[in-house]
């Protein structure tokens, strides 16, 4: 399988004794893009990501990460990756600075550890032992350890869970800077605004299947973005989906001869579209190509 992509996945299947976690996923991530993988808990996101990282092995399908099968990735291959896993409970009696400097020593071309500490907002905590860090600070340390090796491809598994809004904004800036420097990033997240803000493309995974891959502003197809005009009619709330909301509003103005009760014109947010997509899966098992 020759490919110029950072990540190429074809027909990936992973079975556990009690269920099929990943059921035929295809995925392409281009060099230099930020790709967000979305999906409910248990949809197969982390399993997919951990197969790409080499932690788990695929039962079926082909996987190439930076041109290598992760099941056989050696040290040279790992040196090009950065991994920020979902869980982290490291309570070492070691300081932030000691750990970041130590991890830099694993890589052939590391970043300056002190710059990484500053960029992850841990400057004031550099002498603090990890045991004493708050949850958000520990997560930032995870990110610092994930990027200190100057990776070509960075895996971020729910990196901002537990962040306050300000910390999340700071984190986004960090990711944008990494992207500007050319780092390819695979991000999983529960926050749709995060995906919308950071990702060049998003993939929605549910029940172990990739149900759609698109840019954040085309996800769900054209129809999904149709404007919704709603108002309070004599028979209760009415909603019309239309490509011409202005004309609809004009018609309503004429009909009501002035103020239209509880008039609203909205376009669905990425979150609405996402919920609709996974809702469709939950309602009826996805058939081959049903959504595409």
């Amino acid at each position: 399988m020759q490919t110029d992509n950072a990540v190429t996945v074809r027909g990936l299947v992973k079975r556990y004794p009690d269920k099929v976690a990943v059921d035929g996923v295809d995925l392409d991530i281009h060099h230099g893009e930020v790709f967000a993988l979305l999906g409910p808990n248990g949809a197969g996101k982390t399993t997919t990501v951990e197969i790409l990282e080499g932690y788990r092995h695929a039962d079926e399908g082909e996987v190439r990460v930076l041109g290598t099968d992760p099941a056989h990735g050696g040290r040279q291959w790992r040196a090009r990756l950065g991994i920020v896993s979902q869980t982290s409970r490291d309570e070492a009696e070691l300081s932030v600075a000691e750990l970041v400097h130590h991890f830099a020593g694993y890589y052939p071309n590391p970043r300056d550890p002190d710059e990484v500490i500053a960029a992850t907002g841990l400057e004031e905590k550099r002498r603090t032992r990890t045991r004493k860090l708050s949850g958000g600070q520990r997560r930032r340390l995870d990110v610092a350890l994930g990027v200190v090796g100057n990776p070509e491809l960075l895996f971020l598994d729910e990196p901002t869970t537990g962040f306050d809004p300000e910390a999340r904004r700071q984190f986004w800036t960090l990711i944008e800077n990494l992207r500007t420097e050319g780092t390819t990033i695979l991000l999983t997240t529960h926050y749709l605004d995060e995906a919308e803000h950071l990702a060049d493309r998003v993939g929605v995974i549910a029940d172990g299947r990739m149900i759609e891959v698109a840019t954040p502003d085309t996800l769900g197809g054209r129809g999904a973005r149709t404007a919704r005009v709603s108002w309070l009619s004599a028979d209760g709330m009415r909603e019309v989906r239309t490509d011409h909301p202005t004309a609809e509003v004009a018609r309503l103005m004429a009909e009501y001869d002035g103020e239209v009760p509880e008039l609203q014109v909205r376009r669905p947010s990425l979150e609405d579209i996402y919920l609709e997509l996974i809702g469709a899966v939950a309602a009826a098992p996805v058939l081959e190509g049903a959504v595409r």
Partner: protein
Amino acid sequence: MSTALPSPLKIGLSRTRLEVKEFFREREQLIFTFLFPIIFLGIFSAVFSGTDFSGGVDAATYFTPGMIASGIFLTSFQSLSIGIAIERDQDVLKRLRGTPMSSQSYFIGKIGVVLVTSVLQFGLLLAIAGLLLGVDIPSEPEKWLNFVWIFILGTASGCVLGIAFSVVPKSGRAASAVVTPVVLLLQFISGVYFVYSSLPAWMRTVAEIFPLKWLAQGMRSVFLPDGFEVNEPGGSWQLGTGAIVLAVWLVVGLFVAQRVFRWTRRDAG
């Protein structure tokens, strides 16, 4: 981007430095692994201060080799099995596995911290025994030569068995609770806290299966005066048998450790 990877040895030594730092910062490790034998030597030599263990051997002298053996077992077996179980549970091992650090480097770091701490512990024990408790420290080179191979064989088997045993505790929190009683039990039946020959025969038979008994007996051969071996159950130091038993545990431990060691938790699929 073609710069070579740092060598496994270089990373391993860097890990040794990090592990030693961490070891001495963890109060639990420091007390229950590093200082335990030293504290017990102090207590025992005070409690049995008037007792003569035949041949003019006093309590401090009799218990010094046992505590040295026990210290070796604690810094290798106990410290590695608890430490690695916790690292696995807290996903420290998983994180390391995701970097270009090789497993050789990881184990160089572990063996490094065991060597540094056990040598320091031995030095401290010897200094306290010799300077404060008036224990005669042997000067014959052949005894020290024996000491060196017993120390190396004991440390090495303790290391591999500790690495293997680290998969037994189900969680990091359970690690101390699972490992410590095993070690304590071995110490009791192996003649670390009691005069070995005073133990019931069946208990000695059980102890003979395990390495600590042979480690302790080997250390007695180094630190107790010549002729004291008539007090041993077999009437001799049995160094040859001890070497064989320790070597068998080393080989078995190495084999098992390689097979059972894992970088992720059991529930991680």
